[in-house]
């Protein structure tokens, strides 16, 4: 079956199936002159899988979604506004532990290729955290994706073409090292700090940050003992009870 895509150029949103591999979504978006706010290599995972593994990115990447609650055939449409104050976020709820719903379709924030370009950054790892954020602000960045290999930092910055800073190097996105592991874990909300980034680089983690949406995540080089792994969706009341218990345990 041909996947369904809908592009909203004004609001910079692309609607597609959450189970579709992101590489297919990216191919279609490229043909329309747009891109996912992710730097290459685009994960082979679907949007749903990416959000499960990197739940701190969900509210940045996805504006709204159709969710399915286990055992309930009625689809649940989350709020279709950039932000709202209408109670707890149903979108975030879909990616709690355990998840309270499953994402089926989503409006994903995308960037027009005509307006963005990417800079590859290659420099010593030491002191890179502060330097990266400085570069981000000076070059009107949208997405930062960095990883350290040994003592070198390899990264890329997706930024506005309107930025006045000249490129230090031509774009060579294909040289960005591949994602090393699919074990994501969350980092801070709000603007990523230089220290967050430096610490992650020192640990060999890959950092994906979207400071314009106040979110970042890290991927670990190898699975961590006790780290969360994707849960299946279970009946809503049971999932809520488990989540409430987890909140009590945390305390």
């Amino acid at each position, binding site marked *: 079956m041909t996947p369904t895509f809908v592009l909203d150029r004004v609001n910079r*949103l692309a609607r597609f199936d959450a189970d579709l591999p992101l590489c297919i979504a990216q191919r279609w978006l490229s043909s329309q002159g747009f891109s996912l706010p992710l730097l290459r290599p685009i994960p082979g995972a679907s949007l749903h899988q990416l959000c499960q593994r990197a739940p701190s990115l969900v509210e940045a990447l996805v504006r709204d979604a159709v969710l399915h609650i286990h055992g309930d055939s009625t689809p649940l449409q989350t709020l279709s506004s950039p932000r709202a104050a209408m109670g707890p*976020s149903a979108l975030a709820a879909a990616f709690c532990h355990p998840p309270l719903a499953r994402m089926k379709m989503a409006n994903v924030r995308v960037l027009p290729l005509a307006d963005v370009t990417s800079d590859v950054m290659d420099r010593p790892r030491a002191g890179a955290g502060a330097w990266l954020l400085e570069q981000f602000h*000076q070059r*009107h960045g949208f997405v930062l994706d960095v990883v350290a290999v040994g003592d070198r930092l390899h990264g890329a910055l997706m930024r506005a073409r309107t930025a006045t800073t000249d490129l230090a190097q031509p774009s060579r996105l294909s040289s960005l090292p591949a994602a090393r592991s699919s074990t994501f874990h969350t980092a801070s909300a709000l603007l990523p700090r230089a220290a967050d980034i430096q610490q992650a680089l020192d640990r060999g983690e890959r950092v994906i940050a979207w400071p314009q949406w106040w979110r970042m995540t890290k991927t670990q080089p190898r699975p961590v003992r006790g780290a969360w792994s994707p849960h299946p969706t279970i009946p809503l009341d049971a999932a809520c009870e488990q989540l409430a218990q987890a909140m009590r345990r945390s305390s």
Partner: protein
Amino acid sequence: MPAALSVSEILASSDGVDTRAVATDLWPRRLIERRDGIAATLPQQVWWPQSQAEVQAIVHAARAQRRPIVPYGAGSGVCGGISPTTQTWVIDLKRMDRIIRIDPAAHEVVVEAGMVGDRLERRLNEAGFTLGHFPSSIYSSTVGGWFATRSAGQLSSRYGKIEDMVIGVWGVDGRGERIEAHVDDLPTGPGAVQMLCGSEGALAIVTQLRLRIEPMPSHRWLRGFTASSLQDGLTSMQRLLQSGAAPSVVRLYDPLDAALSSSHPPQPNEPDHITGGAIACAGIEDSGPHPDDETNPFEPLLQRLEKLMIFSRPHASRTIVGEALARPALLSGLLDRLDAKPRFIIGLEGSADDIHQRLPVVRRSLVGATDLGAAPGERWLSHRHRVSYRMSKVFAAGGWVDTCETACGWAEVLPLYRAMREALRDLAVVMCHFSHAYIDGCSLYFTFAGGGTTGSEGGPRSSLSRYDLAWERALLVLRKHGAALSHHHGIGRLKAHVARSDGTMTVLAAMKRALDPDGILNPGVLGVGGP
């Protein structure tokens, strides 16, 4: 687990003086009722706990007696989040106002929920940081209240809303048990924080928050512009947000809102002033409540109407204002003839170099704009927190004022703006500003003022009936245009009947069953539990 404390050790009062003080928030409907002689329902008791353990003890006792509990911050909510019955216990959290720690290395602050906003910001400023959260109610709202309603501040374009700042939360659920969630918490995942955020006291009583803080930027740039039309103004906002220039402030005032504020001549040749000091902290000390200041956007309108009266008798001007507001279509028609252009305030923060880099991008984003120089921006900065303190004159004049804030995608903004003005035209004078802008849309902040007969008799021409009808129409317009019922004020009881039908409330209702099985936490708010 039984609470260790006995409630008899906790400060409480059933005295009418104390219970009256926490019987309502600033929901304008309650202000109309009060003016018209309709008595407020007083809660049975108010408690002033000083610790999470004391909150637990109160919840245990309330649960045993099946009493509703309403958490209370500083009472500046405007949606009826505080609406007790005669059986309700109100838990006033303002004695829980300690900063537990400021961690400069981790850029975090841990603060109790009852801390009032400006006090927190001043303490952070002393340490060289800012939270970046500046709601106009900053002097009369608490950190817990911000979290409960998903509050937004004036610099949200740079720092985000409160849900973007919170990285951890502690509270007490409806079973009287401690709960906790953090964005870096493996057992719950980051989504748990967002499940509690915006729950308006229906899922837990929040006692403490862990928030991300930012070093204060060293410089600022503020500038005013007029737009040739509202469409051009909105296009400029959209281009600016999508340019990557990351402004701290972007505010666009519609022609009426612009006409009622101070005028500024064009300053096309005025050089850019990049000033030392962040927007974030400027004005906190200076812009507190001033009794003689122009605070309410309708205040200049009141003053102009008063000046038109040549043969005024004492209080007659107020009567005329009240009469005028009772004929909003006529008043709107007159105001529409004012020759005013939409007005912008744009602000950047950062190092001087950083701001210089971004200025050309800002200017390239603007369409049909006329430069007004730095004065409008600096004036806004010095007056920005004065808006919340002067509703009373309009109410005293027999009128009423309320605000309706929403958000939608860029394509829907102008149709929604026009539809709202048209829908309320015979009930209220409507003005609007556009702020809290994002890459994919922005918030619309409508202020509307109307009138009607006063007194407790009621009837279709009464202020209360017209107020309710205005809101009924406003909510219909929001629904029809797919806009949020609220961007940062919350739902309370004002919008609960509409929110109740939203599919996402299925998730909230299930979470309430898990955390508050007896339904004692603020029943009815957000449309879950209660009547």
